[in-house]
Protein backbone atom coordinates (compact mmCIF):
# COMPACT_ATOMS: atom_id res chain seq x y z
CA UNK A 1 0.00 0.00 0.00
CA UNK A 2 1.68 3.18 -1.09
CA UNK A 3 1.69 6.49 0.65
CA UNK A 4 -0.08 8.16 -2.21
CA UNK A 5 -3.23 6.19 -1.65
CA UNK A 6 -5.96 8.60 -0.67
CA UNK A 7 -7.36 8.49 2.78
CA UNK A 8 -10.71 7.44 1.39
CA UNK A 9 -9.14 4.43 -0.29
CA UNK A 10 -7.51 3.49 2.94
CA UNK A 11 -10.78 3.45 4.78
CA UNK A 12 -12.54 1.65 1.99
CA UNK A 13 -9.88 -1.00 1.97
CA UNK A 14 -10.28 -1.63 5.63
CA UNK A 15 -14.05 -1.73 5.58
CA UNK A 16 -14.61 -3.66 2.38
CA UNK A 17 -11.79 -5.19 0.45
CA UNK A 18 -9.58 -6.30 3.28
CA UNK A 19 -12.13 -6.72 5.97
CA UNK A 20 -10.24 -8.46 8.75
CA UNK A 21 -13.05 -10.87 9.43
CA UNK A 22 -14.78 -11.76 6.21
CA UNK A 23 -11.89 -11.51 3.83
CA UNK A 24 -8.82 -12.11 5.92
CA UNK A 25 -10.26 -14.35 8.61
CA UNK A 26 -8.28 -12.71 11.34
CA UNK A 27 -9.26 -11.97 14.92
CA UNK A 28 -12.08 -14.41 14.82
CA UNK A 29 -12.51 -15.20 18.48
CA UNK A 30 -14.39 -12.09 19.59
CA UNK A 31 -16.24 -12.18 16.31
CA UNK A 32 -18.08 -15.19 17.51
CA UNK A 33 -17.78 -14.90 21.25
CA UNK A 34 -19.36 -11.51 21.77
CA UNK A 35 -21.67 -11.19 18.82
CA UNK A 36 -24.70 -12.84 20.30
CA UNK A 37 -26.04 -9.43 21.17
CA UNK A 38 -25.83 -6.31 19.06
CA UNK A 39 -24.82 -4.18 22.00
CA UNK A 40 -21.92 -6.44 22.90
CA UNK A 41 -20.79 -6.65 19.33
CA UNK A 42 -20.91 -2.87 19.00
CA UNK A 43 -19.02 -2.27 22.21
CA UNK A 44 -16.38 -4.74 21.20
CA UNK A 45 -16.07 -3.05 17.85
CA UNK A 46 -15.64 0.30 19.53
CA UNK A 47 -13.01 -1.09 21.84
CA UNK A 48 -11.06 -2.53 18.93
CA UNK A 49 -11.46 0.66 16.95
CA UNK A 50 -10.07 2.64 19.85
CA UNK A 51 -7.13 0.34 20.37
CA UNK A 52 -6.31 0.15 16.70
CA UNK A 53 -6.34 3.89 16.27
CA UNK A 54 -4.33 4.59 19.39
CA UNK A 55 -1.81 1.91 18.55
CA UNK A 56 -1.39 3.18 15.02
CA UNK A 57 -0.96 6.70 16.31
CA UNK A 58 1.58 5.76 18.94
CA UNK A 59 3.61 3.60 16.67
CA UNK A 60 3.70 5.97 13.74
CA UNK A 61 4.70 8.77 16.07
CA UNK A 62 7.46 6.75 17.66
CA UNK A 63 8.55 4.86 14.57
CA UNK A 64 11.76 6.79 13.99
CA UNK A 65 12.68 6.43 17.60
CA UNK A 66 12.16 2.68 18.00
CA UNK A 67 15.18 0.52 17.32
CA UNK A 68 14.34 -2.07 14.65
CA UNK A 69 15.77 -4.95 16.64
CA UNK A 70 13.21 -4.67 19.36
CA UNK A 71 10.44 -3.48 17.10
CA UNK A 72 8.02 -6.30 17.75
CA UNK A 73 8.34 -6.49 21.53
CA UNK A 74 7.79 -2.75 21.69
CA UNK A 75 4.73 -3.04 19.49
CA UNK A 76 3.34 -5.73 21.75
CA UNK A 77 4.02 -3.55 24.73
CA UNK A 78 2.22 -0.64 23.18
CA UNK A 79 -0.75 -2.74 22.19
CA UNK A 80 -1.07 -4.35 25.58
CA UNK A 81 -0.81 -0.94 27.20
CA UNK A 82 -3.71 0.43 25.21
CA UNK A 83 -5.75 -2.70 25.77
CA UNK A 84 -5.21 -2.31 29.47
CA UNK A 85 -6.48 1.23 29.23
CA UNK A 86 -9.64 0.10 27.43
CA UNK A 87 -10.06 -2.74 29.88
CA UNK A 88 -9.88 -0.43 32.87
CA UNK A 89 -12.16 2.13 31.29
CA UNK A 90 -14.82 -0.40 30.48
CA UNK A 91 -14.54 -2.04 33.87
CA UNK A 92 -15.29 1.29 35.40
CA UNK A 93 -17.81 2.84 33.03
CA UNK A 94 -19.46 0.02 31.08
CA UNK A 95 -19.86 -2.50 33.80
CA UNK A 96 -22.79 -4.52 32.50
CA UNK A 97 -21.20 -5.14 29.13
CA UNK A 98 -17.83 -5.73 30.71
CA UNK A 99 -19.23 -8.43 32.96
CA UNK A 100 -20.38 -10.39 29.92
CA UNK A 101 -17.28 -10.07 27.80
CA UNK A 102 -14.40 -8.92 29.92
CA UNK A 103 -12.13 -11.77 28.93
CA UNK A 104 -12.52 -11.02 25.25
CA UNK A 105 -11.73 -7.36 25.76
CA UNK A 106 -8.48 -8.36 27.37
CA UNK A 107 -7.78 -10.70 24.48
CA UNK A 108 -7.81 -7.83 22.01
CA UNK A 109 -4.14 -7.71 22.85
CA UNK A 110 -3.52 -10.83 20.82
CA UNK A 111 -5.43 -9.80 17.72
CA UNK A 112 -3.30 -10.58 14.78
CA UNK A 113 -5.05 -7.88 12.81
CA UNK A 114 -3.90 -5.11 15.13
CA UNK A 115 -0.31 -6.18 15.20
CA UNK A 116 -0.43 -6.75 11.46
CA UNK A 117 -1.59 -3.18 10.77
CA UNK A 118 0.99 -1.81 13.15
CA UNK A 119 3.74 -3.73 11.43
CA UNK A 120 2.58 -3.33 7.84
CA UNK A 121 1.32 0.21 7.93
CA UNK A 122 1.85 2.33 10.99
CA UNK A 123 5.53 1.54 11.33
CA UNK A 124 6.09 2.81 7.79
CA UNK A 125 3.76 5.79 7.56
CA UNK A 126 3.13 9.16 9.04
CA UNK A 127 0.77 9.90 11.84
CA UNK A 128 -2.12 11.08 9.72
CA UNK A 129 -2.34 8.19 7.26
CA UNK A 130 -1.81 5.79 10.15
CA UNK A 131 -4.66 7.37 11.97
CA UNK A 132 -6.89 6.94 8.93
CA UNK A 133 -5.72 3.40 8.44
CA UNK A 134 -6.58 2.67 12.03
CA UNK A 135 -10.02 4.14 11.54
CA UNK A 136 -10.52 2.13 8.36
CA UNK A 137 -9.44 -1.12 9.92
CA UNK A 138 -11.32 -0.48 13.12
CA UNK A 139 -14.50 0.55 11.37
CA UNK A 140 -14.25 -2.51 9.16
CA UNK A 141 -14.09 -4.62 12.23
CA UNK A 142 -16.91 -2.73 13.86
CA UNK A 143 -19.14 -3.09 10.83
CA UNK A 144 -18.47 -6.80 10.60
CA UNK A 145 -19.24 -7.29 14.28
CA UNK A 146 -22.43 -5.29 13.98
CA UNK A 147 -23.64 -7.24 10.96
CA UNK A 148 -23.03 -10.54 12.67
CA UNK A 149 -24.51 -9.54 15.99
CA UNK A 150 -27.48 -7.93 14.26
CA UNK A 151 -28.50 -11.22 12.72
CA UNK A 152 -27.67 -13.28 15.74
CA UNK A 153 -29.61 -11.20 18.22
CA UNK A 154 -32.54 -10.74 15.87
CA UNK A 155 -32.86 -14.41 15.07
CA UNK A 156 -31.73 -15.84 18.35
CA UNK A 157 -33.56 -13.63 20.79
CA UNK A 158 -36.07 -11.81 18.66
CA UNK A 159 -34.69 -8.52 19.90
CA UNK A 160 -32.25 -5.78 18.94
CA UNK A 161 -30.09 -3.86 21.37
CA UNK A 162 -32.11 -5.53 24.09
CA UNK A 163 -35.49 -4.43 22.76
CA UNK A 164 -37.68 -7.43 22.13
CA UNK A 165 -39.84 -7.56 19.00
CA UNK A 166 -41.47 -10.89 19.59
CA UNK A 167 -42.25 -12.75 22.74
CA UNK A 168 -40.60 -15.96 21.62
CA UNK A 169 -37.06 -16.69 20.63
CA UNK A 170 -37.31 -17.43 16.93
CA UNK A 171 -34.12 -19.42 16.46
CA UNK A 172 -32.50 -19.79 19.81
CA UNK A 173 -29.47 -21.60 18.44
CA UNK A 174 -28.25 -18.39 16.83
CA UNK A 175 -27.04 -17.00 20.14
CA UNK A 176 -25.27 -20.26 20.98
CA UNK A 177 -21.83 -21.27 19.68
CA UNK A 178 -23.28 -23.15 16.72
CA UNK A 179 -25.21 -20.09 15.61
CA UNK A 180 -22.08 -17.94 15.82
CA UNK A 181 -20.13 -20.24 13.55
CA UNK A 182 -23.07 -20.56 11.18
CA UNK A 183 -23.52 -16.80 10.98
CA UNK A 184 -19.88 -16.15 10.14
CA UNK A 185 -19.73 -19.07 7.71
CA UNK A 186 -22.85 -18.06 5.89
CA UNK A 187 -21.93 -14.38 5.75
CA UNK A 188 -18.50 -15.27 4.42
CA UNK A 189 -20.08 -17.45 1.79
CA UNK A 190 -22.43 -14.62 0.95
CA UNK A 191 -19.54 -12.21 0.40
CA UNK A 192 -17.76 -14.84 -1.64
CA UNK A 193 -20.88 -15.30 -3.70
CA UNK A 194 -21.05 -11.59 -4.37
CA UNK A 195 -17.40 -11.62 -5.28
CA UNK A 196 -17.86 -14.51 -7.69
CA UNK A 197 -21.16 -13.35 -9.09
CA UNK A 198 -20.50 -9.68 -9.62
CA UNK A 199 -16.76 -9.24 -9.66
CA UNK A 200 -15.64 -12.49 -11.19
CA UNK A 201 -13.44 -13.18 -8.17
CA UNK A 202 -12.21 -16.55 -7.09
CA UNK A 203 -14.30 -16.43 -3.96
CA UNK A 204 -11.47 -17.74 -1.88
CA UNK A 205 -11.55 -15.95 1.42
CA UNK A 206 -9.14 -16.28 4.19
CA UNK A 207 -5.46 -15.92 4.36
CA UNK A 208 -4.48 -18.54 6.88
CA UNK A 209 -4.22 -17.18 10.40
Amino acid at each position, binding site marked *: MSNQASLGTLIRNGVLMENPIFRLALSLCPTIAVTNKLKNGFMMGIAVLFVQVMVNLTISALRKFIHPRIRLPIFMLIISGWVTVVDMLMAAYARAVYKEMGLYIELIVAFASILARAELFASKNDVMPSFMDGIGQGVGFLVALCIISFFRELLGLGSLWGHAFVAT*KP*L*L*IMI*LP*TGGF*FAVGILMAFFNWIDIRFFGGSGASGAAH
Partner: protein
Amino acid sequence: MEATKKEHYLVVSVSPHVKSEETTSRIMWTVSLALLPAILSGLYFFGLKALFVTVLCILSCLVFEHLYMKVVDKTSVVSDGSAFLTGLLVGMNMPASLWSFSPFEVHIPIIASLVAIVITKQLFGGLGFNIFNPALMGRAFILICWPRPMTIWLHPTSSFLALDAKTTATPLGILKESGMTELMKVFGDKAGLYQHLLTGNVAGSIGETSAIALLIGGLFLLYKRYITWHIPVSFLGTVAILAWIFGGKEGLFTGDPIIHLLSGGLMLGAWFMATDYVTSPSMKKGQIIFGIGCGGLTMLIRLKGGFPEGVMFAILLMNCFAPLLDRGVKSKVFGLRKEAAK
Protein backbone atom coordinates in the same frame (compact mmCIF):
# COMPACT_ATOMS: atom_id res chain seq x y z
CA MET B 1 -18.43 -60.04 -43.82
CA GLU B 2 -18.36 -56.44 -44.87
CA ALA B 3 -22.11 -56.58 -44.46
CA THR B 4 -21.87 -57.82 -40.88
CA LYS B 5 -19.62 -54.97 -39.99
CA LYS B 6 -21.96 -52.36 -41.39
CA GLU B 7 -25.06 -53.76 -39.76
CA HIS B 8 -23.78 -53.74 -36.26
CA TYR B 9 -23.18 -51.03 -33.81
CA LEU B 10 -20.57 -52.06 -31.28
CA VAL B 11 -20.63 -50.58 -27.82
CA VAL B 12 -17.19 -49.91 -26.38
CA SER B 13 -16.56 -49.38 -22.71
CA VAL B 14 -13.98 -50.35 -20.16
CA SER B 15 -13.96 -53.53 -18.14
CA PRO B 16 -15.62 -55.00 -16.20
CA HIS B 17 -18.49 -55.50 -18.55
CA VAL B 18 -20.87 -57.02 -16.04
CA LYS B 19 -22.02 -55.37 -12.85
CA SER B 20 -24.06 -56.46 -9.90
CA GLU B 21 -27.75 -55.67 -9.67
CA GLU B 22 -27.28 -53.58 -6.54
CA THR B 23 -27.90 -49.87 -6.90
CA THR B 24 -27.78 -46.97 -4.50
CA SER B 25 -31.49 -46.35 -4.76
CA ARG B 26 -32.31 -49.99 -4.17
CA ILE B 27 -30.30 -49.86 -0.96
CA MET B 28 -32.06 -46.72 0.21
CA TRP B 29 -35.52 -48.07 -0.52
CA THR B 30 -34.74 -51.38 1.14
CA VAL B 31 -33.56 -49.63 4.27
CA SER B 32 -36.78 -47.63 4.22
CA LEU B 33 -38.68 -50.87 3.93
CA ALA B 34 -36.81 -52.26 6.91
CA LEU B 35 -38.10 -49.31 8.92
CA LEU B 36 -41.68 -50.21 8.08
CA PRO B 37 -42.41 -52.33 11.17
CA ALA B 38 -41.15 -49.57 13.44
CA ILE B 39 -43.10 -46.86 11.71
CA LEU B 40 -46.24 -48.97 11.78
CA SER B 41 -45.82 -49.48 15.48
CA GLY B 42 -45.33 -45.73 15.88
CA LEU B 43 -48.53 -45.06 13.98
CA TYR B 44 -50.36 -47.63 16.05
CA PHE B 45 -49.38 -46.05 19.34
CA PHE B 46 -49.35 -42.38 18.43
CA GLY B 47 -52.05 -42.34 15.81
CA LEU B 48 -52.83 -39.86 13.13
CA LYS B 49 -50.60 -37.21 14.66
CA ALA B 50 -47.59 -39.41 14.14
CA LEU B 51 -48.60 -40.01 10.55
CA PHE B 52 -48.94 -36.29 10.02
CA VAL B 53 -45.52 -35.50 11.46
CA THR B 54 -43.78 -38.29 9.55
CA VAL B 55 -45.32 -37.41 6.22
CA LEU B 56 -44.53 -33.75 6.82
CA CYS B 57 -40.87 -34.59 7.39
CA ILE B 58 -40.62 -36.81 4.34
CA LEU B 59 -42.27 -34.26 2.09
CA SER B 60 -40.13 -31.43 3.42
CA CYS B 61 -36.95 -33.39 2.86
CA LEU B 62 -37.94 -34.28 -0.69
CA VAL B 63 -38.93 -30.72 -1.46
CA PHE B 64 -35.77 -29.21 0.02
CA GLU B 65 -33.60 -31.69 -1.85
CA HIS B 66 -35.36 -30.94 -5.10
CA LEU B 67 -35.29 -27.17 -4.60
CA TYR B 68 -31.63 -27.18 -3.70
CA MET B 69 -30.78 -29.11 -6.82
CA LYS B 70 -32.79 -26.66 -8.89
CA VAL B 71 -31.09 -23.67 -7.29
CA VAL B 72 -27.59 -24.93 -7.91
CA ASP B 73 -28.54 -26.14 -11.34
CA LYS B 74 -27.88 -29.82 -10.89
CA THR B 75 -30.07 -32.66 -12.02
CA SER B 76 -32.39 -33.59 -9.24
CA VAL B 77 -31.93 -37.13 -8.01
CA VAL B 78 -34.71 -37.23 -5.48
CA SER B 79 -35.57 -40.70 -6.74
CA ASP B 80 -32.36 -42.14 -5.33
CA GLY B 81 -34.29 -42.51 -2.11
CA SER B 82 -31.70 -41.04 0.20
CA ALA B 83 -33.71 -37.88 0.86
CA PHE B 84 -36.79 -39.99 1.44
CA LEU B 85 -34.91 -42.13 3.93
CA THR B 86 -33.52 -39.08 5.67
CA GLY B 87 -37.02 -37.61 5.86
CA LEU B 88 -38.42 -40.83 7.22
CA LEU B 89 -35.73 -40.94 9.88
CA VAL B 90 -36.23 -37.30 10.79
CA GLY B 91 -39.91 -38.06 11.23
CA MET B 92 -39.26 -41.14 13.30
CA ASN B 93 -37.07 -39.06 15.59
CA MET B 94 -39.75 -36.48 16.36
CA PRO B 95 -42.19 -36.52 19.21
CA ALA B 96 -45.68 -36.92 17.80
CA SER B 97 -46.74 -33.87 19.79
CA LEU B 98 -45.29 -31.66 17.07
CA TRP B 99 -48.39 -32.05 14.96
CA SER B 100 -49.89 -29.10 16.78
CA PHE B 101 -51.04 -25.93 15.00
CA SER B 102 -51.87 -24.12 18.20
CA PRO B 103 -49.47 -23.42 19.64
CA PHE B 104 -47.96 -23.40 16.18
CA GLU B 105 -45.32 -26.09 16.15
CA VAL B 106 -45.41 -27.64 12.72
CA HIS B 107 -42.55 -25.44 11.58
CA ILE B 108 -40.29 -27.44 13.84
CA PRO B 109 -40.22 -30.64 11.78
CA ILE B 110 -39.88 -28.57 8.63
CA ILE B 111 -36.81 -26.77 9.98
CA ALA B 112 -35.35 -30.08 11.09
CA SER B 113 -35.69 -31.28 7.51
CA LEU B 114 -34.14 -28.09 6.18
CA VAL B 115 -31.13 -28.42 8.45
CA ALA B 116 -30.82 -32.10 7.58
CA ILE B 117 -30.96 -31.76 3.84
CA VAL B 118 -29.53 -28.36 3.08
CA ILE B 119 -27.01 -27.62 5.80
CA THR B 120 -25.85 -31.05 6.85
CA LYS B 121 -25.98 -32.82 3.52
CA GLN B 122 -25.96 -30.55 0.50
CA LEU B 123 -23.59 -27.86 1.73
CA PHE B 124 -21.04 -30.59 2.24
CA GLY B 125 -21.38 -31.84 -1.30
CA GLY B 126 -24.51 -33.93 -1.17
CA LEU B 127 -25.00 -37.66 -1.03
CA GLY B 128 -21.87 -39.41 0.08
CA PHE B 129 -19.95 -36.41 1.32
CA ASN B 130 -21.74 -35.29 4.44
CA ILE B 131 -19.77 -35.59 7.66
CA PHE B 132 -22.73 -35.75 10.00
CA ASN B 133 -25.84 -37.85 10.01
CA PRO B 134 -28.38 -35.49 8.44
CA ALA B 135 -31.44 -36.77 10.26
CA LEU B 136 -29.76 -36.55 13.64
CA MET B 137 -28.25 -33.14 12.98
CA GLY B 138 -31.70 -31.90 12.05
CA ARG B 139 -33.04 -33.21 15.29
CA ALA B 140 -30.19 -31.84 17.42
CA PHE B 141 -30.71 -28.41 15.90
CA ILE B 142 -34.39 -28.21 16.77
CA LEU B 143 -33.85 -29.76 20.19
CA ILE B 144 -31.62 -26.84 21.05
CA CYS B 145 -33.90 -24.26 19.43
CA TRP B 146 -37.16 -25.51 20.86
CA PRO B 147 -36.27 -27.65 23.86
CA ARG B 148 -39.73 -27.49 25.39
CA PRO B 149 -41.86 -28.83 22.52
CA MET B 150 -39.15 -31.34 21.78
CA THR B 151 -39.45 -32.85 25.23
CA ILE B 152 -43.21 -33.14 25.35
CA TRP B 153 -44.16 -36.74 24.79
CA LEU B 154 -47.58 -38.00 23.88
CA HIS B 155 -49.03 -40.81 25.87
CA PRO B 156 -49.16 -43.92 23.69
CA THR B 157 -52.80 -44.58 22.97
CA SER B 158 -54.24 -47.21 20.78
CA SER B 159 -56.91 -45.01 19.39
CA PHE B 160 -55.68 -43.94 16.00
CA LEU B 161 -57.77 -40.84 15.64
CA ALA B 162 -57.45 -39.53 19.17
CA LEU B 163 -56.61 -35.85 19.02
CA ASP B 164 -56.35 -35.27 22.75
CA ALA B 165 -52.90 -34.45 23.92
CA LYS B 166 -52.31 -36.45 27.00
CA THR B 167 -48.61 -36.25 27.74
CA THR B 168 -46.24 -38.21 29.90
CA ALA B 169 -42.55 -38.77 30.49
CA THR B 170 -40.35 -41.24 28.67
CA PRO B 171 -39.04 -44.23 30.63
CA LEU B 172 -35.52 -42.86 30.50
CA GLY B 173 -36.77 -39.47 31.61
CA ILE B 174 -38.42 -41.04 34.62
CA LEU B 175 -35.35 -43.12 35.34
CA LYS B 176 -33.08 -40.11 35.19
CA GLU B 177 -35.25 -37.76 37.18
CA SER B 178 -36.94 -39.97 39.71
CA GLY B 179 -35.09 -43.26 39.67
CA MET B 180 -35.97 -46.89 39.38
CA THR B 181 -38.63 -47.02 42.07
CA GLU B 182 -40.73 -44.45 40.29
CA LEU B 183 -40.32 -46.38 37.05
CA MET B 184 -41.52 -49.54 38.73
CA LYS B 185 -44.51 -47.67 40.11
CA VAL B 186 -45.54 -46.67 36.60
CA PHE B 187 -45.04 -50.01 34.93
CA GLY B 188 -45.77 -52.45 37.74
CA ASP B 189 -42.78 -54.74 37.59
CA LYS B 190 -39.77 -55.38 35.41
CA ALA B 191 -41.57 -57.86 33.20
CA GLY B 192 -44.28 -55.32 32.55
CA LEU B 193 -41.70 -52.67 31.74
CA TYR B 194 -39.82 -54.94 29.35
CA GLN B 195 -43.05 -55.83 27.63
CA HIS B 196 -43.97 -52.21 27.16
CA LEU B 197 -40.51 -51.40 25.88
CA LEU B 198 -40.48 -54.30 23.44
CA THR B 199 -43.85 -53.55 21.93
CA GLY B 200 -43.38 -49.81 21.95
CA ASN B 201 -46.21 -48.96 24.32
CA VAL B 202 -44.25 -46.14 25.95
CA ALA B 203 -43.75 -42.44 25.37
CA GLY B 204 -40.99 -41.42 23.02
CA SER B 205 -40.19 -40.36 19.48
CA ILE B 206 -42.51 -41.78 16.85
CA GLY B 207 -40.24 -44.46 15.48
CA GLU B 208 -38.04 -45.29 18.44
CA THR B 209 -40.32 -46.95 20.93
CA SER B 210 -40.84 -50.47 19.65
CA ALA B 211 -37.63 -52.37 20.22
CA ILE B 212 -38.96 -55.54 18.64
CA ALA B 213 -40.04 -53.85 15.40
CA LEU B 214 -36.67 -52.14 15.11
CA LEU B 215 -34.88 -55.39 15.81
CA ILE B 216 -36.81 -57.10 13.05
CA GLY B 217 -35.82 -54.37 10.62
CA GLY B 218 -32.21 -54.42 11.75
CA LEU B 219 -31.90 -58.17 11.43
CA PHE B 220 -33.48 -57.97 8.00
CA LEU B 221 -30.77 -55.53 6.92
CA LEU B 222 -28.15 -57.77 8.44
CA TYR B 223 -29.54 -60.75 6.58
CA LYS B 224 -29.61 -58.82 3.32
CA ARG B 225 -26.02 -57.77 4.06
CA TYR B 226 -26.93 -54.12 3.75
CA ILE B 227 -25.24 -53.58 7.07
CA THR B 228 -22.66 -55.64 8.89
CA TRP B 229 -22.73 -56.64 12.52
CA HIS B 230 -19.77 -54.55 13.56
CA ILE B 231 -21.43 -51.27 14.48
CA PRO B 232 -24.71 -52.53 16.00
CA VAL B 233 -23.06 -55.24 18.04
CA SER B 234 -20.24 -53.13 19.41
CA PHE B 235 -22.66 -50.25 20.10
CA LEU B 236 -25.29 -52.36 21.86
CA GLY B 237 -22.66 -54.48 23.60
CA THR B 238 -20.92 -51.46 25.06
CA VAL B 239 -24.20 -50.02 26.27
CA ALA B 240 -25.17 -53.31 27.91
CA ILE B 241 -21.84 -53.72 29.66
CA LEU B 242 -21.69 -50.13 30.89
CA ALA B 243 -25.32 -50.22 32.01
CA TRP B 244 -24.62 -53.35 33.98
CA ILE B 245 -21.49 -51.97 35.61
CA PHE B 246 -22.48 -48.38 36.30
CA GLY B 247 -26.24 -48.31 35.87
CA GLY B 248 -27.21 -49.46 39.35
CA LYS B 249 -27.82 -47.28 42.34
CA GLU B 250 -26.60 -49.95 44.76
CA GLY B 251 -23.06 -49.97 43.47
CA LEU B 252 -21.04 -51.37 40.63
CA PHE B 253 -22.38 -54.34 38.69
CA THR B 254 -25.96 -53.87 39.83
CA GLY B 255 -27.39 -52.11 36.79
CA ASP B 256 -30.13 -53.43 34.55
CA PRO B 257 -28.74 -53.60 31.02
CA ILE B 258 -32.06 -54.64 29.52
CA ILE B 259 -33.83 -51.41 30.34
CA HIS B 260 -31.05 -49.42 28.77
CA LEU B 261 -30.93 -51.66 25.71
CA LEU B 262 -34.63 -51.47 25.02
CA SER B 263 -35.39 -47.88 25.82
CA GLY B 264 -34.77 -44.54 24.17
CA GLY B 265 -33.47 -44.28 20.67
CA LEU B 266 -30.87 -46.97 21.08
CA MET B 267 -32.31 -49.63 18.79
CA LEU B 268 -33.13 -47.11 16.09
CA GLY B 269 -29.72 -45.50 16.46
CA ALA B 270 -27.65 -48.65 16.58
CA TRP B 271 -29.29 -50.42 13.66
CA PHE B 272 -30.29 -47.61 11.36
CA MET B 273 -28.41 -44.42 12.17
CA ALA B 274 -24.96 -45.31 13.39
CA THR B 275 -24.78 -47.67 10.42
CA ASP B 276 -25.27 -44.94 7.82
CA TYR B 277 -22.44 -45.71 5.42
CA VAL B 278 -21.67 -42.12 4.66
CA THR B 279 -21.06 -40.99 8.20
CA SER B 280 -19.42 -44.06 9.73
CA PRO B 281 -15.94 -45.45 9.11
CA SER B 282 -15.60 -47.81 6.19
CA MET B 283 -13.07 -50.22 7.66
CA LYS B 284 -14.32 -52.92 9.99
CA LYS B 285 -11.83 -52.16 12.73
CA GLY B 286 -12.80 -48.51 12.57
CA GLN B 287 -16.45 -49.50 12.76
CA ILE B 288 -15.91 -51.44 15.94
CA ILE B 289 -14.16 -48.49 17.56
CA PHE B 290 -16.96 -46.28 16.27
CA GLY B 291 -19.59 -48.56 17.83
CA ILE B 292 -17.78 -48.71 21.15
CA GLY B 293 -17.44 -44.94 21.13
CA CYS B 294 -21.15 -44.52 20.45
CA GLY B 295 -22.01 -46.90 23.26
CA GLY B 296 -19.65 -45.28 25.72
CA LEU B 297 -20.87 -41.75 24.99
CA THR B 298 -24.49 -42.85 25.11
CA MET B 299 -24.08 -44.22 28.60
CA LEU B 300 -21.95 -41.29 29.73
CA ILE B 301 -24.71 -38.90 28.74
CA ARG B 302 -27.53 -41.10 30.04
CA LEU B 303 -25.94 -41.67 33.42
CA LYS B 304 -23.96 -38.51 34.06
CA GLY B 305 -24.98 -35.93 31.53
CA GLY B 306 -27.66 -33.32 31.34
CA PHE B 307 -29.90 -35.12 28.91
CA PRO B 308 -32.00 -38.17 29.69
CA GLU B 309 -31.11 -39.68 26.31
CA GLY B 310 -27.68 -39.78 24.73
CA VAL B 311 -27.91 -41.79 21.53
CA MET B 312 -28.32 -38.83 19.22
CA PHE B 313 -25.40 -36.85 20.62
CA ALA B 314 -23.27 -39.97 20.88
CA ILE B 315 -23.69 -40.75 17.21
CA LEU B 316 -23.12 -37.14 16.17
CA LEU B 317 -19.99 -36.96 18.30
CA MET B 318 -18.65 -40.14 16.80
CA ASN B 319 -19.48 -38.81 13.33
CA CYS B 320 -16.82 -36.18 14.04
CA PHE B 321 -14.32 -38.96 14.56
CA ALA B 322 -15.26 -41.09 11.56
CA PRO B 323 -12.87 -39.38 9.13
CA LEU B 324 -10.11 -39.73 11.71
CA LEU B 325 -10.88 -43.41 12.18
CA ASP B 326 -10.81 -43.90 8.43
CA ARG B 327 -7.49 -42.22 8.28
CA GLY B 328 -6.01 -44.21 11.14
CA VAL B 329 -7.34 -47.63 10.22
CA LYS B 330 -6.31 -48.72 6.79
CA SER B 331 -6.93 -52.01 5.09
CA LYS B 332 -4.32 -54.75 5.17
CA VAL B 333 -2.89 -54.80 1.73
CA PHE B 334 -2.23 -58.22 0.27
CA GLY B 335 1.44 -59.07 0.42
CA LEU B 336 2.34 -55.95 2.35
CA ARG B 337 3.80 -56.57 5.75
CA LYS B 338 4.37 -53.74 8.16
CA GLU B 339 8.10 -53.77 8.00
CA ALA B 340 8.02 -54.26 4.25
CA ALA B 341 6.00 -51.10 3.75
CA LYS B 342 8.10 -48.73 1.76
